[in-house]
């Protein structure tokens, strides 16, 4: 079984695991720069138009945002426990935690969909249909462009993450993973935690802008 897992161009299973883990970390660096571009643009405009961004941010629903943060942190926990289960070889725990992580991911996406629904109804989706009272409308629309593009990009990465978890579930049901070889679980874990870290930053900078000004 383990020979089949070792690719022909690696000498040892350790070397292959080393390469996969380094490969994922380098990929995460590209993701940091990918999100970094839009984070930079957001930070620059927030620096210039703080009042408008604060007013626009007050229309975001902190409760749903907070719950989503908790959901994502919980999914990170279940992911780590899944990796531990794979390392210790208990297949039932691995299947359970992977499934739980995937479900939590879907819950996050569900809450996100509800939030987007509310924003559509309130006419806060940028474009011709954008309605925002008061003199700050122009820059508020800029805020909502960032809100939708950043959370949308993050949600897209969540969908890919859930897909990868489904692929892991299929593999582990077929018994591919053993204490000697569970690299895919660990690598997908790294990706999942990274997507969680992106949300950890997204939540405060989008939802909590100048809240102390009152509603």
């Amino acid at each position, binding site marked *: 079984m383990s020979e089949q897992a070792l690719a022909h161009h690696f000498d040892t299973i350790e070397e292959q695991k080393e390469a996969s883990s380094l490969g994922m970390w380098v990929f995460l660096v590209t993701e940091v720069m990918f999100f*970094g571009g839009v984070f930079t643009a957001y930070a620059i405009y927030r620096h210039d138009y703080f009042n408008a961004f604060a007013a626009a941010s007050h229309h975001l629903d902190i409760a749903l945002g907070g719950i989503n943060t908790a959901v994502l942190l919980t999914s990170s*926990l279940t992911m780590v426990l899944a990796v*531990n289960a794979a390392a210790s070889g208990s297949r039932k725990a691995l299947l359970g935690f992977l499934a739980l992580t995937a479900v939590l991911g879907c819950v996050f996406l569900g809450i996100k969909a509800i939030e987007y629904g509310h924003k559509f109804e309130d006419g806060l989706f940028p474009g011709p249909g954008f309605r925002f009272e008061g003199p700050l409308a122009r820059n508020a629309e800029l805020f909502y462009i960032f809100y939708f593009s950043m959370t949308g990009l993050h949600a897209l990465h969540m969908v890919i993450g859930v897909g990868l978890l489904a692929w892991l579930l299929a593999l582990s049901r077929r018994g591919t993973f053993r204490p000697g070889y569970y690299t895919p679980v660990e690598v997908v874990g790294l990706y999942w935690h990274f997507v969680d*870290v992106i949300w*950890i930053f997204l939540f405060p900078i989008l939802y909590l802008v100048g809240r102390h000004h009152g509603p």
Partner: protein
Amino acid sequence: MSASPHGSHPTARTCLVIYAALIVLTGMTILAAFIDLGSLSTPVALSIAGLKAALVGWFFMNLRAERGLTWVYAIAGLLWLAILYGLTLSDYVTRGWLSPLAG
């Protein structure tokens, strides 16, 4: 190439402790947002988020047991983000500094 020892994953108990800490920090960042910290509110929010990210990275992403090379790339990512943001900001911050007329 000594790879990271297999058994170095954080134990279930450590994970739960870290998880609890993360939930508490989330609560803190929400509360902090409602207190009028003036110009400090953004740095506080970002440092709490940075702490949470460090916890996830150190324990959940097992940076704790990783070799130096993984650290180099993790830090390179943040450093290049700082280059992008810093040098772009240098243009925006200094735009108003040059007085419009000489003398």
